[in-house]
């Protein structure tokens, strides 16, 4: 099934070695069994909602999803930021810490539509991302949404090739790690102050969550932007990294 890694643009649509009959039959069998499970067995009606509702007032935020993500199950969120960092480390080009974070290269042909779009949209997206981060405490929003929006703004800005970001500079690496580092620092510090990992004190829970979320937003934004850049940049064509690029 996976023995051939096929990269041909005009290659066969379907894997010639995979057996159609067995696969379709087994997948259909799966589907039928799972549907039977859904139809015949009722869900556990309450779920975890009563527990969340009971503790929501002491969590520091009023949005239940943010409370679950950043307070009750904050450990999962910490590990998930680590997952993003793993992929970023794997795709970054080889180290070139000399050049600064962002370099502006003037290009001669300006595409009117694109530059207008950038000029009007990017600041608005930036502001909206900040709002999403702030509003995550009371409404759907929070670090991930804001970070993804910021990354979208970065992708917009990268379309013209004016900006060259060096993701391996010190500044970039600090931004990438500040989310995870802040999370770990707050978590461990709370062991000292409150006795248990990631146990926020009642009065400061909202502030601490906002602090962690801000760090996470910056990290997620630059990590996602670096993932995008690693796929479009061509090594040896004026990229800030060395030409013997690993990406």
């Amino acid at each position, binding site marked *: 099934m996976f023995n051939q890694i096929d990269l041909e643009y005009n290659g066969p649509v379907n894997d010639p070695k995979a057996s159609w009959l067995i696969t379709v039959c087994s997948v259909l069998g799966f589907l039928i069994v799972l549907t039977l*499970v859904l139809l*015949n067995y009722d869900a556990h009606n309450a779920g975890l909602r009563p*527990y969340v509702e009971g503790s929501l007032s002491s969590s520091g935020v009023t949005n239940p999803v943010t409370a679950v993500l950043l307070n009750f*199950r904050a450990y*999962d969120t910490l*590990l998930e930021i680590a997952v993003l960092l793993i992929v970023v480390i794997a795709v970054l080009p080889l180290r070139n810490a000399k050049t600064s974070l962002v370099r502006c290269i003037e290009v001669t042909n300006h595409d009117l539509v694109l530059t207008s779009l950038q000029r009007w949209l990017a600041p608005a997206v930036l502001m909206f991302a900040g709002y999403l981060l702030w509003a995550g405490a009371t409404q759907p929003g929070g670090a991930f949404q804001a970070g993804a929006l910021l990354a979208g703004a970065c992708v917009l800005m990268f379309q013209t090739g004016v900006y060259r970001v060096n993701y391996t500079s010190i500044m970039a690496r600090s931004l990438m790690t500040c989310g*995870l580092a802040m999370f770990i620092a707050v978590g461990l510090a709370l062991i000292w102050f409150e006795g248990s*990992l990631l146990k926020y004190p009642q009065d400061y829970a909202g502030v601490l969550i906002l602090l962690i979320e801000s760090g996470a937003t910056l990290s997620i934004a630059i990590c996602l932007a670096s993932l995008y850049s690693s796929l479009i940049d061509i090594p040896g064509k004026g990229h800030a990294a060395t030409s013997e690029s690993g990406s």
Partner: protein
Amino acid sequence: MTSLSSSLLLPIIVFLPLIAALVGFMSSRNTFQGQLNIGFAFVQFLIVVLMAILFLDEQSYQSAVYQIGTWGAPLGIDLVVDGFSILMIGLTGVLTLILTIYGAAYYADDPKSLRFWPLWWLLIAGLNALFVSGDAFNIYVCLEIIGLSAAALVALQSTRTSLEAALRYLLVGLLGSLFYLMAIAILYRSHGTLDLAQIAASSGNGLPDQVAMILITIGLLLKIALFPLHFWLPQAHANAPTPVSAILSALVVKASLYVLIKFWFEVLSGSTTFGASQVLGVLGGIAIVYGSWKAFRAKQLKVLIAYSTVAQLGYIFLLFPLSEHAANTSSFSGSASQAAIYFIVAHACAKAAMFLSAGNLILSQGSGDIAQLKGIATREPVNVLIFTIAGVSLIGLPPSAGFIAKWLLLTTSIESGQWWWVLVVLSGGLLAAMYLFKILSLAFDNTLDDGAVQIQPKALSSKVLTSSALVLALITLALGFNAEFILNISHPPVGVSGI
């Protein structure tokens, strides 16, 4: 800090490698890089020893629970440690120390070390977090950490074969995790909680639990590389850098095995059937024979060792049919589980030692082909000795850890009346001897071929590379002399049968 639950050792064992990864990522290449990382590994080893001492001190051998944020399950996430997980954490601690020392010497002058160290520590963090986790969704996140960092480490060499192997490994790993996630979704639907202990308390024999068990089994079998889902393993383990191959074969596949055992015996034990365990046992038996045969036919040294991993993992799957006949079928105790635990530890140490020594031989010889290894015993005697010791453990000859593991398996099979597994175990030993003696006879063969050019001896491997592999081989031998040590950690002192 008198008890394990109230101390902060459990969070620290997860956060220390994360901090090491961050430090590795932020720092640039300097002369202290190797020593810094060895320092982190040593601190982790000390913490692991402390954890083991605290765990054994609590005379009750119950599991220690650490509630993160004191919310407690099911609202929060619990970190749970029992005998099996303490053993796996201990194994991770020891292997991390030795492999970090090896890696520091291996990557001493290589610019790739900047990418290696953060990924290495994130892999260790994922392993530690998996072994202490008590929450089903947390296990999913940890499995993804392990899978992604392992695939990134395999791709470190950036050669064509390693990139292909890494891509295949990644796709298979993601597929397995998605099966697991689907099973978690179904379990949450029917039980309303994500905590393992609570799911265990409310699980029964219903269809949702059985379907979830099947999905978890298939997903984790993809990650453990049991026959016939093993197709990704040989290329991935063979084309990775040497310390990465060692930890992949020794710990990463065992991590998924740990999750499978936990679900099979503790969480969803009501939904496992006798037929299913026999199927797993049969697949394990086929894996032993098939893996040994392909190892015999391999042309490259690391591919041979990787196929040997496929074969050795088959032995551990004999645990499933054998434990159905033990006294308590619903808990992970009894002689079959003792055999499996001992096998996991023995194989981890032996396979890591074998990979390290093979890596040294390849470095000294310059190529990984088996045919090139002719007569290498005169140039690299210590490394060939390490390879031999590891091979002795894999075949199951005394006095090695592998012998004790096989002995436990044999006595358990005879006791439970399923004598056909005895044939499988014995023939597996013979097959392992086949491919290992092939290597050793070639290594000691000093005759010159007609017209063959005398191979110029390359520079011998550095002392650190050889001595760290030697330490692992000696540990394998030492475990062969003192079986009680491991078994007492993982199980309450019931009489060890057969010794």
